[in-house]
């Protein structure tokens, strides 16, 4: 007792001295022994550690940034990006700004004139077919419209304008005169369309590596000059040779286009161009959920074109079925593995991991051999007399095939987290439950199962997320009714080349997974997910 008292006094006196010391310092911030603020000196001491940690992760960080983060950002961007229309048809987009598309008439002559200029450059740069296929996603026939007209644009009767202008002012036939004219600021602002067209022209020639001075002039310059003189308010300010265009013979561009392809007179087409003229568009996303945006706003696509919502639904529901199947098959196996002696458990664990040693493609192809109508399973069933030879089971090229093959392939991803969590549940819990009077079932259900839930969570998330984005297996054994959304994404990436739609579908998939993850976190709690330990 005396001894304890003594120790207490010692402690007290120690406290007092340290308090006194604090009191001396407490005037300012806490200082280290050398007088620098403690925080600063601590930060300096930790800096080396932090730097080392950063250096250790740097290679992976860079790799992930380049190979993972950047492509995802790019993909997200592609799903809304729509610069092709305004890049290739800048004048047309400008001309359509004021057009009211609610009527049943195509826009006025001005839009066709702008289209002529734009299409000239597009054809020169061979971009018109690309624009055609972009617009074809929104309105059928656009691709052939652009292709056909591209071939015809050189034969429009625009030389009438050129010859009339050159007749009045012969020096305009020289490139040098144009260069001088277009070098003058006042003239440029007086003739804006002519200036813009000239700039596009010189830019194009520089890109092609041609010399502006030696390349012959095109009709577009004279057409643009004619349009400016006709419509321009300040055209008189231009330092131009006197041109009187009042009695000119004109060109009806609308008719020229119509004679190339009467699709140009379709008001629907013009509405589409107007709708998709902004640089960013929700169009791909709308398309990805079977909607479309047209002049009247957002509305469902025709029934025959609605596939994505069904496909998303199927992907989700089949992934859920696969996850459930994996859980039902994997849980007992994991339990057995966790409760066997280490030697046997390791051997069995190798058997579980064995599928990883074969290529995914080989495994899936093996399922093809197993499941087809003349395959191993059907042959066996027929031989055993369970199934009539005439009515062999169809287990492939449908959802059944996808579910069977994918359950098999994803099973290890369920078993491993379950196993590692079950390994940490001491057998004494179930023993305690039994000693307290619980039957085997009650002990399992009330005591063992709740503790294995983190493993179920981890395994299910893993399997579900892997399943939702699976591609190869549904592609091989899924037929048409058993394919997933990722097969459609792959199709748009490699076959239809509609990368915007593929990006939108991918983004929706990504968001869906994140939302599910969030919901899971809310319901079960992500802290309850354990991959072991």
């Amino acid at each position: 007792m005396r001894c304890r008292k003594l120790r207490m006094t010692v402690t007290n006196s120690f406290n007092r001295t340290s308090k006194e010391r604090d009191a001396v310092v407490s005037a300012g911030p806490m200082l280290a022994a050398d007088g620098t603020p403690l925080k600063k000196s601590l930060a300096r001491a930790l800096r080396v550690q932090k730097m080392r940690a950063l250096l250790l992760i740097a290679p992976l960080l860079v790799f992930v940034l380049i190979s993972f983060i950047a492509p995802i950002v790019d993909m997200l961007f592609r799903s809304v990006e729509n610069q092709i229309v305004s890049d290739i048809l800048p004048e047309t987009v400008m001309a359509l700004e004021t057009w009211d598309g609610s009527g049943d008439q195509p826009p006025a002559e001005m839009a066709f004139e702008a289209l002529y200029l734009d299409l000239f450059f597009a054809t020169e740069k061979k971009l018109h077919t690309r624009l055609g296929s972009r617009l074809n996603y929104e309105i059928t026939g656009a691709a052939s419209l652009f292709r056909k007209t591209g071939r015809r644009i050189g034969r429009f009767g625009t030389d009438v304008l050129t010859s009339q202008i050159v007749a009045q002012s012969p020096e305009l036939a020289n490139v040098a005169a144009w260069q001088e004219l277009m070098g003058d600021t006042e003239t440029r602002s007086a003739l804006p369309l002519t200036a813009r067209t000239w700039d596009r022209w010189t830019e194009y020639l520089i890109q092609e590596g041609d010399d502006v001075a030696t390349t012959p002039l095109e009709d577009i310059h004279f057409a643009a000059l004619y349009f400016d003189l006709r419509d321009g308010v300040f055209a008189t300010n231009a330092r131009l040779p006197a041109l009187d265009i009042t009695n000119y013979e004109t060109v009806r561009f609308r008719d020229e286009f119509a004679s190339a392809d009467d699709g140009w007179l379709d008001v629907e087409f013009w509405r589409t161009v107007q709708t998709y003229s902004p640089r960013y568009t929700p169009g791909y996303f709308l398309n990805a959920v079977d909607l479309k945006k047209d002049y009247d706003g957002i509305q469902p696509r025709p029934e025959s074109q609605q596939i994505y919502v069904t496909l998303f639904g199927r992907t989700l529901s089949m992934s859920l079925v696969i996850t459930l199947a994996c859980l039902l098959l994997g849980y007992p196996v994991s339990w057995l593995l966790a409760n066997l002696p280490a030697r046997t458990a390791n051997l069995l664990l190798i058997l579980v991991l064995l599928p990883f040693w074969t290529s995914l493609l080989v495994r899936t192809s093996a399922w093809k051999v197993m499941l087809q109508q003349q395959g191993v399973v059907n042959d066996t069933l027929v031989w055993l007399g369970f199934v009539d030879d005439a009515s062999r089971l169809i287990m492939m090229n449908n959802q059944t095939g996808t579910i069977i093959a994918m359950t098999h392939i994803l099973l290890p991803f369920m078993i491993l987290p379950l196993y590692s969590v079950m390994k940490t549940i001491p057998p004494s819990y179930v023993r305690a439950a039994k000693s307290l009077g619980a039957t085997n079932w009650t002990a399992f259900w009330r005591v063992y199962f709740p503790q294995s839930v983190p493993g179920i969570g981890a395994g299910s998330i893993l399997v579900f997320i892997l399943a939702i984005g699976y591609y190869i297996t549904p592609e091989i054994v899924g037929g048409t009714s058993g394919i997933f959304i990722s097969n459609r994404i792959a199709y748009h990436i490699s076959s239809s080349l509609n990368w915007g739609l593929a990006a939108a579908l991918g983004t929706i998939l990504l968001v869906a997974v994140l939302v599910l993850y969030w919901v899971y976190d809310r319901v079960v709690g992500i802290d309850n997910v354990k991959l072991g330990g």
Partner: protein
Amino acid sequence: MTEIPTNSAFLQFERVQKSYDGETLVVKDLNLSMPKGEFLTMLGPSGSGKTTCLMMLAGFETATHGEILLDRKPINHIPPHKRGIGMVFQNYALFPHMSVAENLSFPLEVRKVSKSDREGKVMRALEMVQMEEFDNRRPAQLSGGQQQRVALARALVFEPEVVLMDEPLGALDKQLREHMQFEITRLAHNLGITTVYVTHDQTEALTMSDRVAVFDDGRIQQLATPDQLYEEPENSFVAQFIGENNTLIGTVKSIAGKTGIVTLDNGEEIAAKMVNVSNVGDRTKVSIRPERVEFNRERLHADAHTLKAEVKEFIYMGDIFRFRLAVAGNEDFIVKTRNAPDAVKLAPGQKIEIGWLADDCHALDA
């Protein structure tokens, strides 16, 4: 060793054997009978078979041979959940996903006790271990000692007649352990529960139990009350295992009744009680407790044998002094004296004479 009449036996092991691999016996021919209300401790080094015996009793292991009887009924083929035996596990095994109250109410729920009765019983059990304020906590929010109390309450809440405890205090610190030892014995005696307690801590065994069964090599080496076990060890394993012990090796020279003369290996002769040596010429280990060794000549009996000793080391332990001596070739001969005002402090190198009563000196098997 006290013989318990078979008719009062509440819990019995009859010629029980257990083998896990079919080659070696973990438990060899175990016979044990306990009257109702007894607190019996199974004490032994790890691997001695004590935990296996407990597991057989609880029903988690089946006996390879022999019968276990509870209240004269064989229970070998009764599954654990029907045995009605409460058990406290080494790491408490409190269900981590249930609150304290839910843990306690679990055995009552599975016994279909009505909700109102359950609540009363749970609260009474918690009061019994002074944990009534913690009913809503999760086990992870409790300290080791509190978890221990809850585990105890859970094993008692369904009023079992037998409670098994598998090293329940192993994870607690010394002070708490001593306190819980007292609590557990108090509860067990107050409730009249038959308790089988497994430990490898001999102090725990001695302080808590009515009787202690010392296990080694799959057999009970001695079954006796704590004082008998300490003072009258039946063989050299028990003498070595229980408490601190000094051993001198020699040969039996002569036997006269219960006592005899042992010639030590260095030629000196001492008198000793013959415990499990019966023939002249047998090798023997003579065992003397450190606190029974006297070096104060005035306190020695006139007829006491004395041996020459040299002090090797002095260890100050607060309440006692501990000396390491070299005696008859044994360099680890320990002597303890109480730190009394008149206690003698011996210095290393000092040559002294030591002695003891012949009764305190047991000649055991070599």
